[in-house]
């Protein structure tokens, strides 16, 4: 197995740790943002695992998992988690309903496809052969730019906005750096996915690994409690005689 084909296994392991961390945080705080991030990260991890599997062996169900979760949906759910932190609950609810409906529709479209397994090649990255495996004009492929644009705007835009707010106020540098790392990681996978769209699928694995490492690092840094300086206390006055 080549080094490039080992990368998805490493990405899967990192995303598993990341997903567990985020769901643990949701279990404690019950903030919906952590639930949506957890769902997005689980999808990212499932997509990475499917990629790693498909290098070794063909399986149509695993291919569906790879495209639906790895290529189409995970960016949107990750971005949705960031949206939940920054926007009023009413709008988050509306967009959540739309995202769930869109995800279900994409899933139904994916399950209705007749895949051309004859185009599969063992040892070749699935990002280089998926176009031949999926039927020409598959409608589900038209949905991925919508999910990815939404995810890109929300995840990267939200991270940059948060970083800018803290930077401008000159406070909580861990959150500034953390959000910069998250944005860099998201851009890494966005860039690699764009290259895959243009036919350069060999960069997808390294893009995913960089995204996994940077986003997890950013999460750990942004979530780390910062040391708040102790307030200066005035010297106590000596009690006056009654």
């Amino acid at each position, binding site marked *: 197995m080549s080094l490039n084909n080992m990368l998805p296994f490493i990405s899967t392991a990192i995303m598993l740790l990341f997903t567990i961390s985020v769901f643990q945080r949701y279990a404690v705080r019950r903030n919906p943002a952590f639930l949506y991030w957890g769902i997005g990260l689980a999808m990212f991890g499932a997509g990475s695992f499917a990629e790693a599997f498909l290098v070794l062996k063909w399986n149509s169900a695993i291919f569906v998992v790879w495209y639906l979760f790895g290529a189409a949906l995970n960016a949107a759910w990750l971005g949705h988690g960031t949206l939940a932190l920054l926007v009023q609950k009413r709008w988050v609810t509306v967009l959540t309903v739309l995202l769930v409906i869109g995800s279900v529709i994409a899933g139904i479209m994916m399950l209705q496809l007749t895949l051309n397994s004859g185009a599969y090649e063992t040892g070749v990255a699935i990002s280089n052969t998926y176009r031949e495996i999926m039927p020409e004009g598959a409608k589900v492929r038209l949905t991925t730019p919508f999910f990815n644009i939404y995810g890109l705007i929300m995840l990267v835009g939200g991270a940059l906005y948060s970083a800018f707010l803290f*930077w401008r106020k*000159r406070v909580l540098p861990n959150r500034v750096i953390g959000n910069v790392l998250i944005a860099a990681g998201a851009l890494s996978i966005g*860039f690699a996915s*764009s290259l895959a769209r243009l036919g350069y699928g060999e960069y997808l694995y390294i893009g995913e690994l960089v995204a996994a490492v940077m986003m997890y690092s950013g999460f750990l840094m942004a979530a780390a409690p910062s040391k708040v300086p102790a307030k200066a206390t005035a010297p106590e006055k000596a009690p006056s005689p009654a």
Partner: protein
Amino acid sequence: MNFLNRFKIHKMPQQSFFYDRIVPTLLLLFAIVTVALILFAVGILTGLIAWA
């Protein structure tokens, strides 16, 4: 993890090349790349950019 400890402070240093120059440059660069990627995705959707 000791590297992370230097960021566990409440306020940024008053004068810092990293926070005064590097960080805002990165924020601006990432914003430009984000817009470029969005335009690229819109180009694919509208058929202006040929995709494989």
